[in-house]
């Protein structure tokens, strides 16, 4: 009917399943998390209803529409200025009372409201019965619909309600009744507002009157052209305070909660007064003042065991796939085309397959990391980690909530920088943003896995765990230093955060999240890493000096080799002053994912010639059988590694020695080392390899993360970060190498 697409908005508290409902309505995919403040960006999707296109806008999750945070201002400005056809207020049915607070504020904006009682299954499981008809009646007939976003229940009813609400323009807005003294002032202010048509066109007059009485800073600024209105608001608030002894803002909040509590007491029945929920009982243990922190560390240890060891069999499988069949088939195909021995073959096999392939090998590692992080997030534990870590974060003048962006940083630093937006205080944000880049992101993990496998075998999980701990320690130390210097004289910031109830992680959500995050990695492999692989290959094929032809040059005489050679003395004190090591580090500025890929190109490039008298390549059928049997084997080994987490965890305790499972009887055999791993052992000593890993952990974050820091905190700030991280990394690596040498570990 309408020429322009109608807009509807989704509003709600953080953690009410708004994103899931958004997906269910629009069919589009987006990130779904389980800790507060995840939805920061504005998201749009399309919904087709009766042949009409409707734009669905996902507003940021907020608890209120006061002007105390960017998200709140975004949300209320959208409702005021964009005038959506309807606002779907997504409400956690299992936390009705608190959630309705936001709803009262949306109602006051006099926009058509539909209430989605989401997660109604959880409410029902807890024995809560909500009379949605009664609720609807008390809200002047605003539709109230029970939904379960994750399983699509109620979505069709919701869609029908959207169509109806959008055409029904005659409904009276629900008026939240305020205490008499407030109503008197509101009426007075409303009358004053209504004399100015410029304002009544833009804002609902009653809402503006309430905001003036509340002393809403942002509205005052906007109304600076009408100083007498602001003055009238101040006078009204002063009269209220004089009369009641309480300030107007508090009384307004009280009135809203009184309204809500009347509403809830008539519409909600609970079985009996449940004092302690199962979630509370879990909290007695998991957030305990004494064992909360050890439990957190134990969980983290298990996480890194899973990422390091459990994914290893599949890592080997993918590796075998790329270096075996895929490479063989490519070579055979090129031979059939008569391209054997050409530069094109070199580019494809040594450049692209070696470079991109060696990064793709780590897809199983990242998938398992994202899988466990997803489980922790969706179960509700992540928010508890913030509470448990609060006392550690205090040391550096931050509170527990700052730990959440850091945990996100374990996945990727870029969203971690943006996740600092959930912090209210500006300098908290900056400090946290500075520290998150020390959190070891998924892209750095392959380097540790590689070094761990090459030098430490079954103990590689310990190296990886140590790297993660070191990242946290350096972040804490940096924070402590900054607190003593730049951020001196700063009072500690208030900490308050909602804890979602514990629940069984939903496979669907966790899987989608894992897949999305891994997908991001694979896309990077297809773009950034592909481009840098080609560039590195090219630089390695171009001779810098001597009488070499293109693609015939030994690596150390190539352009790449010469540049890396020039840089390498810097790293000599850290024990890896070789051109190969510095070359890989240079490429890591682009993206940390690239490091392993370029190492492969650099180190393996020298080795290809050594394979002259290799056995004839397997036939196509042999290859297929190999893929199948090795997959089965990898699956069995993965199960074995999961089982082995138990003995490995028990064995941390000195004196205990629980045997590990060995399903295929292969544990005694030395693990097959890849070509890259054996090449590494020739260039690095074990100690230098550890120093190298430390450097990779700490040094300048990738371009994308720097861009994010610049975007959020400014260019000067990004520059400090580049310099500081590089310096810290160098010092850290030198300390490890020199210290280790002094202790006699240098051999």
């Amino acid at each position, binding site marked *: 009917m309408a020429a322009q697409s109608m807009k509807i908005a989704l509003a709600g508290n953080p953690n009410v399943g708004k994103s899931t409902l958004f997906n269910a309505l629009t069919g589009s995919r987006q990130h779904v998390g389980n800790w507060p403040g995840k939805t920061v960006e504005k998201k749009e999707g399309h919904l087709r209803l009766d042949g009409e296109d409707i734009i669905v806008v996902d507003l940021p999750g907020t608890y209120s529409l006061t002007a105390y945070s960017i998200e709140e201002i975004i949300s209320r400005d959208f409702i005021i200025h964009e005038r959506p056809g309807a606002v779907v207020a997504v409400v956690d049915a299992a936390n009705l009372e608190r959630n309705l607070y936001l709803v009262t504020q949306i109602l006051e904006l006099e926009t058509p409201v539909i209430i989605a009682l989401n997660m109604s299954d959880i409410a029902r499981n807890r024995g809560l019965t909500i009379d949605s008809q009664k609720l609807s009646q008390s809200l002047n007939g605003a539709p109230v619909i029970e939904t379960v976003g994750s399983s699509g229940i109620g979505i069709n009813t919701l869609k029908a309600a959207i169509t109806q609400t959008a055409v029904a323009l005659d409904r009276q807005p629900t008026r939240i009744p305020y205490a008499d003294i407030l109503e008197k002032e509101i009426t007075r202010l409303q009358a004053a507002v209504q004399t100015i048509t410029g304002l009544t066109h833009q804002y609902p007059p009653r809402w503006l009157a309430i905001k003036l009485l509340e002393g809403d800073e942002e509205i005052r600024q906007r109304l600076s052209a009408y100083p007498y209105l602001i003055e009238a608001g101040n006078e009204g608030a002063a009269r209220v305070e004089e009369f009641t002894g309480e300030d107007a803002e508090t009384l307004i909040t009280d009135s809203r909660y009184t309204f809500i509590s009347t509403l809830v007491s008539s519409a909600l029945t609970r079985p009996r007064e449940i004092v302690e929920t199962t979630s509370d009982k879990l909290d007695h243990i998991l957030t305990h003042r004494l064992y909360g922190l050890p439990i957190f560390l134990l969980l983290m240890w298990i996480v890194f065991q899973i990422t390091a060891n459990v994914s290893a069999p599949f890592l080997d499988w993918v590796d075998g796939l790329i270096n075996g069949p895929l490479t063989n088939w490519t070579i055979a195909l090129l031979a059939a085309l008569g391209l054997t021995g050409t530069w094109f073959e070199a580019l494809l096999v040594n450049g692209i397959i070696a470079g991109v392939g060696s990064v793709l090998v780590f897809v199983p590692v990242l998938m398992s990391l994202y899988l466990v992080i997803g489980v922790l997030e969706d179960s509700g534990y992540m928010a508890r980690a913030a509470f448990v870590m609060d006392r550690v974060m205090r040391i550096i003048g931050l509170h527990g909530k700052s730990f959440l962006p850091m945990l996100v940083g374990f996945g990727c630093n870029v969203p971690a920088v943006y996740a600092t937006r959930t912090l209210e205080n500006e300098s908290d944000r900056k400090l946290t943003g500075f520290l998150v880049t020390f959190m070891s992101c998924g892209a750095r993990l392959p380097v540790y896995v590689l070094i761990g496998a090459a030098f430490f075998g079954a103990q590689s999980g310990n190296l990886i765990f140590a790297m993660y701990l070191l990242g946290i320690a350096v972040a804490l130390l940096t924070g402590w230093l900054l607190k003593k210097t730049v951020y001196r004289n700063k009072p500690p910031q*208030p900490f308050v955060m909602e804890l979602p109830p514990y629940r069984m992680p939903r496979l669907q959500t966790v899987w989608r999240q894992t897949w999305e995050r891994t997908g991001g990695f694979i896309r990077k492999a297809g773009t950034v890493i592909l481009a840098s692989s080609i560039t590195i290959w090219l630089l390695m094929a171009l001779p810098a000096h001597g009488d070499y032809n293109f693609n015939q040059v030994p690596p150390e005489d190539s352009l790449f080799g010469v540049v890396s050679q020039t840089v390498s003395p810097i790293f000599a004190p850290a024990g890896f002053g070789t051109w190969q090591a510095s070359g890989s580090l240079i490429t890591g500025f682009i993206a940390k994912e690239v490091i392993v890929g370029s190492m492969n190109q650099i180190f393996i490039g020298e080795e290809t010639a050594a394979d002259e008298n290799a056995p004839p390549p397997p036939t196509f059928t042999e290859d297929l059988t190999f893929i199948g049997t090795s997959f089965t084997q990898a699956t069995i080994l993965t199960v074995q590694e999961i089982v082995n987490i138990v003995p490995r965890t028990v064995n941390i305790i000195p004196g205990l020695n629980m045997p590990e499972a060995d399903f295929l009887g292969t544990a005694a055999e030395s693990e097959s080392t890849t070509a890259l791993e054996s090449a590494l052992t020739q260039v690095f000593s074990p100690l230098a390899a550890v120093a190298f890993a430390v450097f990779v952990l700490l040094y300048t974050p990738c371009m994308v993360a720097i861009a994010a820091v610049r975007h959020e905190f400014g260019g000067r700030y990004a520059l400090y970060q580049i310099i500081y991280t590089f310096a810290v990394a160098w010092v850290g690596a030198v300390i490890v190498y020199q210290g280790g040498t002094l202790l006699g570990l240098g051999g």
Partner: protein
Amino acid sequence: MIPTTSSQTFPLTFAARGDTVSLIEIRDSGRLRQRLNDLGLNIGISVRIVQTNTNGALILAVKNDSRLAIGHGMAQKIMVTYTPSEA
């Protein structure tokens, strides 16, 4: 609901795990108090202390179904009293 004048008020930090107390006053103006209000901590309500941390941070049960983690600094500013009926 409104406590008698004789009952003592004290900062939330002094409450122990398992206690139920009612909110008397938030000794702050503006932003912080509004934040607490938005999260359901308004004057007159009862809260139960679910957990305490060694640094004075707390987990509170608010309005039956909501759980909030709250820092020591904030808890110091929240004045409470034991709810007479639930002693």
